[in-house]
């Protein structure tokens, strides 16, 4: 419990920063919805004239910007990128920060099992991510209802989008931890988390452009593609199962790797 509290406090400021950033992003984007929707005809026509590849890259094919959730799903994609970076940051730093700042010698010399350390850290990261999630939930509802301009939307579909966020983040968190434990030394958390988050995004974008379905299997941006969820009103179950499976494997693998890890001092 003491490790959990400590870890939670260490990341609280970052969680608040990410929450505020995501909130501003959603709020600002939704604030232009009513003026956009008024010219929806024009907007949709403009979109159609854009190269198909570009639209696919941004997940904007068949998107109807005049609907509340059509427009929201566009904002949601950017939110996903932010939250992917947040989760990857937590993941890559979770264990490696102890080694790079030499606090591993402090922590691992205490009477505590490594599994307990990892569990506490994972739960603390989860709590911090939940803070960001709750913020996004609240801001999304507020922003949508403030700016929808009398247009209606399907609450269930919105909930599907919002619920997906935490599962989506857990993927990046657990994969980040697993990769960091496969590495002998993590030099820069930011570089790695940017690479993982943007890498997955680019895979999803290019996958769309190249029409390669195989890439759908790897990237969470496809597992929880906002446009697809809004269009279909449901998850793509096999992809979600795949996503959760990867998360579970990464977490189990992390425990095994951490239990056996030789912890060196950073020099």
């Amino acid at each position: 419990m003491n490790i959990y509290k400590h870890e939670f406090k260490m990341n609280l400021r970052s969680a608040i920063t990410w929450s505020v950033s995501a909130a501003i992003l959603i709020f600002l984007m939704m604030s232009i919805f009513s003026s956009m929707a008024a010219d929806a005809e024009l907007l949709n026509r403009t979109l159609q004239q854009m190269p198909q590849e570009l639209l696919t890259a941004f997940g904007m094919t068949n998107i109807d910007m005049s609907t509340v959730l059509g427009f929201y799903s566009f904002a949601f994609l950017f939110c996903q990128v932010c939250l992917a970076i947040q989760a990857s940051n937590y993941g890559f730093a979770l264990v490696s920060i102890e080694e790079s700042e030499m606090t591993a010698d402090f922590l691992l010399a205490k009477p505590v099992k490594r599994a307990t350390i990892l569990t506490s850290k994972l739960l603390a990261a989860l709590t911090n991510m939940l803070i960001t999630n709750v913020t996004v939930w609240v801001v999304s509802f507020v922003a949508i209802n403030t700016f929808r301009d009398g247009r209606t939307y399907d609450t269930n579909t919105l909930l599907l989008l919002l619920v997906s966020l935490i599962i989506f983040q857990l993927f990046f968190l657990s994969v980040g931890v697993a990769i960091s434990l496969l590495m002998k030394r993590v030099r820069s958390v930011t570089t790695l988390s940017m690479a993982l988050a943007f890498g997955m995004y680019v895979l999803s974008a290019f996958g769309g452009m190249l029409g390669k379905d195989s890439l759908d299997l790897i990237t969470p941006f496809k597992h929880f593609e906002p446009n697809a969820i809004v269009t279909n009103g449901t998850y793509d179950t096999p992809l979600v199962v795949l996503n959760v499976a990867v998360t579970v494997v990464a977490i189990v693998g992390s425990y095994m790797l951490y239990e056996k890890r030789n912890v060196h001092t950073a020099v």
Partner: protein
Amino acid sequence: MSIIEVNHLTKYYGKAKARGIVDVSFNVEEGEIFGFIGPNGAGKSTTIRLFLSLIYPSSGTAKIFGKDCIQFGPEIRQEIGYLPSEVFYYEGMKVLDLLNYSASFYKKDCSKRLHELADIMELDLTRRIDDLSYGNKKKVGIVQGLLHQPKLIILDEPTSGLDPLMQRKFFDLIREENERGATVFFSSHILGEVQKMCNRVAIIKEGSIINIQDIKTMQQDNYKKIRIAGNGLDETRFEVAGVNNLEHENGSINFFFKGDINLMMRLISEQEVADVTIEEPTLEEIFMHYYE
């Protein structure tokens, strides 16, 4: 009872099989202050990190309080105080926060001892650790290692960064803990401090223990350091068995001697001397001998 039992402990690092330590065996008895000396890279920290299961051995075992270091790790560490050689800090934490965090891992109430130790080491509890000098960070390390009054204290190069006054306070503190019943494992490359503190000492060289001895016998049974001053000294007379490192400078002869001291006295009495000193070599000098 042996507090630490090390049996053929071996550690190679990574795929390249870089040497950590090779076939290290020794025991540390209850109540001892056990010195562990060797130059940087000899394997001192590797040995300590194996005790704490920060790293895992390639072969061999280490037992602390009669229990295997890996299997009973968390239980053993309840009674170990460890001062790492590197200073550490969590970003943005105040000294008191860190010490309370450290104390929260132990079953007993450590707050009284925490404040006592901070007073002794003149540590300001309200400052942020990031802002502290190297020496002050080291003090934080000392307090967090001792606040739970451990049965075994493991010190890894503890004095670097401490000024002489603080070093003395620190050594007094360690002696007190020792008198209270704590066993101390003291790793260092500074021989003077080991000499002052320890009962027994193990010398480690390139990953292997080359000698374990009682400090007193180590100094007595070994070499005498002899210096003879005078005019017209014939240094060739001293080129006998048992004499080492014979030097002639500024009208004096210096050497180390191991053997029958009567023989040496007779040799000296043949000379017209102005001054003679016969003394115990420092550990430093013995140590240099092992590293030749």
